[in-house]
């Protein structure tokens, strides 16, 4: 028996009109952590769906050899039966059910007469939770736990299925740094117990940290598999393989031309919408100038999104107090339309849930926030609308056959460009971009940064909220740090480093004054 737990040989998968995978080969050694890298749309998820039986045997060409035997999975059940478990990017837990119920969902611990044995269920669940290092009561409803803990529950669920080969699709995309670190530790730990992992990720630093080998996929083909223990296997090396070209710089050059102050926020305080005594944003003050990119760094739960959304038409929170000045004059932003009218724009961190109408086309998504400019007396000029959409498709390089394409069918990067187009079209002076590059590939990220640069060059001000510190350091002029709802620091980028920012972002409440 070979040392490979899995060999996928010459996998080709075609959809009507598209060759998603072409002659892809993947070899995973027993007990390793194998990373898969590639731009969005390169075919990583398709490959994993072939492996896990989502696309059953017969719908693709090529062979899968698992544990030395030819595998012909007809469904997810088949693959899980032999220990191949996939954890998707979007977690599939039922929020109202308990931790234990979720772990054994579809795989219930039955006692006498086919009834569920709750004692066994909860006891088993407790053991599994201990294995993933999660200190929670098995009867806690999953919905009350954070994303990081939910991710661990997914892994516990996989363990309950006697997993041998664990596939994780972007496991840390929604996690903050400490949760990510915990997850990576757990993967190392599981490796020690002989569990092989395949990890799809965009976070190259994590891959460099944890993976034994990395397979790079580009345009539906395997490019190469790199041994990560070699000193030449750097992040830049992976990027080169992914994009097929050297990205000299991951961030486009920009000469800052900072002008006058355009937005100033003073003593902004926001309370939690349901727990009224909880302060989510506490006396936050900051300002942005024309031609400036300002970053807001903070760990998950620091109040970054809450700060932005409460500013943008009081879309979050209650008992909001504080003052907002636009071009030196105090303004009110009590409703979203008021905020838009004052030249604010906010692109959400979750573009599918809050940013786009996925069943509508590109054209109508772009015009959605500024229909007034396209209409007179309530009537929309549809020809003008189409023209505007075409202009933005060209200028932001939105890759779609026409602007009549539904946004739900676009890749993450192109969806993000549609969201940006929508807000740029409102001609806002201040654009608040919440995690503008989350879940999108390196090439599209570069394009987004270029768009940001073009905006500030035109005299706009951009506020970028991001979990990725290198990104903030790469594109911002000034960075504010947020911890526990308070602004804990303001650092010009020249004096900022990841360590310095992290220090400010983790300041305890007592220290913040």
């Amino acid at each position: 028996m070979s040392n490979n737990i899995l060999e996928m040989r010459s996998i080709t998968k075609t959809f009507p009109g598209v060759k998603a995978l072409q002659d892809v080969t993947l070899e995973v050694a027993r007990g390793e952590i194998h990373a898969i890298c590639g731009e969005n749309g390169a075919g990583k998820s398709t490959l994993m769906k072939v492996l896990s039986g989502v696309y059953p045997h017969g719908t693709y060409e090529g062979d899968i050899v698992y544990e030395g035997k030819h595998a012909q999975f007809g469904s997810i059940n088949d693959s899980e039966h032999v220990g191949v478990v996939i954890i998707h990017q979007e977690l599939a837990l039922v929020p109202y059910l308990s931790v234990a119920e979720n772990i054994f969902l579809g795989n219930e611990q039955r006692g006498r007469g086919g009834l569920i044995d709750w004692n066994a269920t909860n006891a088993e669940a407790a053991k599994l939770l201990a294995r993933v290092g999660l200190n929670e009561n098995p009867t806690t409803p999953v919905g009350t736990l954070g994303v990081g803990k939910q991710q661990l529950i997914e892994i516990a669920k996989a363990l309950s299925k006697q997993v041998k080969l664990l596939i994780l699709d972007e496991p840390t995309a929604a996690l903050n740094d400490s949760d990510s670190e915990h997850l990576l530790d757990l993967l190392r730990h599981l490796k020690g117990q002989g569990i092989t992992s395949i990890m799809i990720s965009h976070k190259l630093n994590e891959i460099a940290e944890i993976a034994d080998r990395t397979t790079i996929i580009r345009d539906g083909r395997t490019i190469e598999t790199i041994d990560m223990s070699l000193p030449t296997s750097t992040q830049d090396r992976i990027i080169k393989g992914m994009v097929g070209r050297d990205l000299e710089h991951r961030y486009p050059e920009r000469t800052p031309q900072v002008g006058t102050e355009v937005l100033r926020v003073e003593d902004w305080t926001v309370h939690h919408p349901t727990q009224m005594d909880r302060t989510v944003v506490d006396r936050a003050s900051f300002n942005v100038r024309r031609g400036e990119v300002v970053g807001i760094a903070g760990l998950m739960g620091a109040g970054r999104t809450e700060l932005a959304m409460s500013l943008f038409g009081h879309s979050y929170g209650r008992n909001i107090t504080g003052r907002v000045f636009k071009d030196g004059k105090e303004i009110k932003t009590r409703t979203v339309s008021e905020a838009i009218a004052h030249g604010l724009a906010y692109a959400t961190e979750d573009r599918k849930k809050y940013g786009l109408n996925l069943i509508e086309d590109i054209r109508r998504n772009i015009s959605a926030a500024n229909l007034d400019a396209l209409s007179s007396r309530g009537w929309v000029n549809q020809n003008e609308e189409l023209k505007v959409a075409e202009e933005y498709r060209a200028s932001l390089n939105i890759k779609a056959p026409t602007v009549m394409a539904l946004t739900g069918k676009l890749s993450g990067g192109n969806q993000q460009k549609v969201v940006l187009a929508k807000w740029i079209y409102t001609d806002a002076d201040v654009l608040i971009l919440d995690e503008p590059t989350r879940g999108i590939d390196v090439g599209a990220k570069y394009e987004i940064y270029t768009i940001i640069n073009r905006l500030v060059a035109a005299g706009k001000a951009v506020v970028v909220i991001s979990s990725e510190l290198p990104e903030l350091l790469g594109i911002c002029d000034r960075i504010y740090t947020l911890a526990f709802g308070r602004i804990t620091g303001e650092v010009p980028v020249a004096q900022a480093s990841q360590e310095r920012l992290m220090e400010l972002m983790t300041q305890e409440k007592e220290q913040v004054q």
Partner: protein
Amino acid sequence: MTGIANIRELLTRNMRQSGIYIAFVLIVGLFAILTDGLSLSPNNISNLVLQYSYILILAIGMVIVIIAGHIDLSVGSIVAFTGAISATLVIKGGLPWWMGVLVALVVGFLAGAWQGFWVAYVGIPAFIVTLAGMLLFRGGTYLVLGNISLSPFGAPYSDIAAGFQNGLLGGPGYDVFTLLIFALAVVGFAVSQWRSRSARVAYQQAVEALPLFALKIVAVAAVVMWFAWQLANSRGLPNVLIILAFLIMAYSLITSRTVFGRHVYAIGGNLSAAQLSGVKVRRVNFWVMTNMGILAGVAGVVFSSRSNGAQPSAGNMFELDAIAACFIGGASTTGGVGKVTGAMVGGLIMAVMSNGMQILGLDQSIQQVVKGLVLLLAVAFDIYNKRRAVTAG
């Protein structure tokens, strides 16, 4: 982006919509054969218009409600309620006919606004609010009528739905006036199509080739004029058809061309995204529900006029017919998708089927079974289409 769209592109561009039109033609053809052409006779077509007009009027409002992601179960009861109030005022109170119409519309407006308030500003799901409304307004109907029927209205109230424009210009056995009105409508249609085509050309968009464009206009003109010919050979132009045509045109434009219409689609497509794009969601929802109330008032007038009186059980199950028309016409059960014209064709499919089965003398029970199956198949087809679209993408 210039280019010439061909026929196949025209058909496949919106399978969901064109599928419905093809189904409609097939169903009309089927019943024409089954009834030996009786279903296409002048008198039957004239009857069909009168008989289903109020369902179509309700479906216009309903499709907007459904696009916004809501539902309205109360419209049948509001039809009865508004008709009852109008009958009480006109028949019992001796007020002029137009007072009855006016009050019915105002009551419809108020009923809609009442429900709109609970849906939009209190945040109760429309299903619950209108389920309550269904009971509320049915009960109100019983109270107003004291549990007995009222009739007759007499002309001119009864002419609203049962009357015709006929003989205004005389005519040799067929009504010239009807033909003239329809001819004008066809010319208007052709002109507006030409203008919108020219505008698209000016904006360098793809348009269909000129021969194809001409063919489309001629085909539409032929169907419409044939329809006019049948009406002219029967009793002339039904008044209710004028009302219906006006409403269809107005609401097609409102849904497709106005900011309000666009906001309705945005809310149904993704509520949160609409909110964060500055759409005043509450206000839009309020007016969507209120508008449904007004149209239910219109349907109430039309129905009471057609039945020449008011009955406590009037309008029973109308809501279900209207909802079915929308879904057969391609509206999505989850909101964000649908068209007024689609709902009209959906309503007509139901109408042609019911009418055809009546001519064939099929039992009421069989008719119900067939209608139920058609609704189920239409939505199944819709879901199948959606799933295919997803896997292909």
